[in-house]
């Protein structure tokens, strides 16, 4: 229907196909008079069908890397190819869906409507209702569907944001600490849901602090002091 914003759902790609390739990514910010080098050197390859964890201490550059990969910010240097290649304009949601730390739910829309929003904007609501309902069932407790975001818990809101990102079956899903407000059972359920999405051909990159969940992912990328070690892609470069 449109090439803008949420746009057409893309679905996953054939398992193993390269989704993101980055080499020597650099990004700095101005904070008052000083220049902060948030990302010094990031090299990574992400493939369709993978659930990959991004770990590192606070301030190590995790959120900056996610912002570059989703096209919200442009790198200062390095090479980036992927659904959000820096060719101007934000990529459609069907290509890159995000679960930002601040969630970004629409306050005036109910929980169910928030999840359906990407489908509606893509002109695909009728065909996707069942899928949205199944995700609600799986993640958000369907009985909360008619409530406003302000009327459910923070943990539930976080799962609403995840369901909204998953509903279009994005080529790349980027989640920034999506289990920060979940208890242990729900955190496991969140990772299981992302693993299921990856199995359908999406690529999921999850920034997390949660060590016990690393066993659930295919690979772990460790970022420290703005450096992400070169990664051959496909193979295991760490592990839970």
């Amino acid at each position, binding site marked *: 229907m449109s090439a*803008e*914003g949420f746009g057409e759902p893309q679905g996953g790609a054939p398992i193993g196909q390269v989704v993101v390739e980055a080499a020597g990514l650099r990004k700095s910010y101005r904070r008052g008079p000083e220049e902060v080098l948030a990302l010094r050197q990031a090299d990574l390859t992400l493939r369709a069908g993978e659930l990959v964890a991004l770990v590192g201490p606070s301030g190590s550059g995790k959120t900056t890397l996610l912002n570059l990969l989703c096209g*919200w910010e442009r790198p200062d240097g390095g090479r980036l190819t992927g659904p959000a290649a820096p060719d101007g304009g*934000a990529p459609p949601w069907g290509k890159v869906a995000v679960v930002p730390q601040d969630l*970004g739910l629409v306050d*005036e829309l109910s929980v169910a409507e928030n999840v359906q*929003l990407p489908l509606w904007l893509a002109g695909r609501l009728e065909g996707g209702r069942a899928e949205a309902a199944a995700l609600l069932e799986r993640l958000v407790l369907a009985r909360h569907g008619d409530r*406003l975001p302000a009327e459910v818990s923070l943990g539930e809101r976080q799962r609403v944001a995840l369901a909204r990102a998953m509903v279009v079956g994005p080529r790349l899903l980027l989640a920034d600490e999506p289990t920060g407000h979940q208890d242990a059972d729900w955190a496991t359920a969140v990772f299981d849901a992302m693993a299921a999405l990856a199995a359908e051909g999406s690529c999921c990159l999850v920034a997390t602090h949660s060590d016990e969940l690393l066993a659930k992912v295919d690979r772990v990328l460790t970022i420290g002091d703005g450096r992400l070690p070169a990664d051959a892609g496909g193979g295991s470069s760490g592990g839970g």
Partner: protein
Amino acid sequence: MPAEAAASCSGLVKIYWTATGEVHALKGVDVVFPAAAVSAVVGPSGSGKSSLLRILAALDRPTAGQVQIGGVQLSGLSVTRLRRVRRRLLGYVFQRPADNLIPYLTVAEHLRLAARLRGGRAAAGGDGGELLELLGLADRRHHRPRELSGGEQQRLAFARAVVGDPPLVVADEPTAELDRAAGAALLAAVGALAARGTALVLATHDPAVVALSERTLYLRHGAMEAEATRQEALSVIDEAGRVQLPPEALGLFPDRRARIGVEEGRVWIGPP
């Protein structure tokens, strides 16, 4: 309520209960907001501006008194129906530009979503192209909020609020976080939006907003002190017959007692 009024309040009282006692934020406010006009609400902090705005926007309920928006009486409405009134009849613009927008939606998507929320004719309406043209955002259709300047973000917030031509849009100090040029561009846009039929009510400290407004309402101590048009300023007499003296006149009455007389169509008031 006159037929041309977009909104009206009568006898509005708002009391907050705090740890240190009751706060009477509004003490019986009567006001009518005409359609297609910009009204400024000014007053020092603590005057009741925010309380009045939140009640007008159906974000809060008065302790007593009546509010009508677009002919709909708000008192007694359930939470669900009040939410529906907000969607159909009201727009609200926060002070901080970012609070009004959704980071992952493009400009055009903001307007489509607003039209959908508005429902009725708006939902089936166009793509908001005319509105974006009016607000100088036409070449920003495919941008997301973080790619817009603060002024552009706030113009988009107003565009979103007026989609579907609701009777009333309420804005809380919408120029407070903008520089002078961006504020001026926003105010030019606000004037053009009112001309489409929506009543705009802006709480403000900004003299530029007051200069733009057809009407300015002065609140003090939770009561309407005066109402000014571009031609003249008039004191307000409320339903109980109360008038607020300007602070400089109050000095004449240290005991807070006065003699009042009526002579030849005039009222005089003096110290005892």
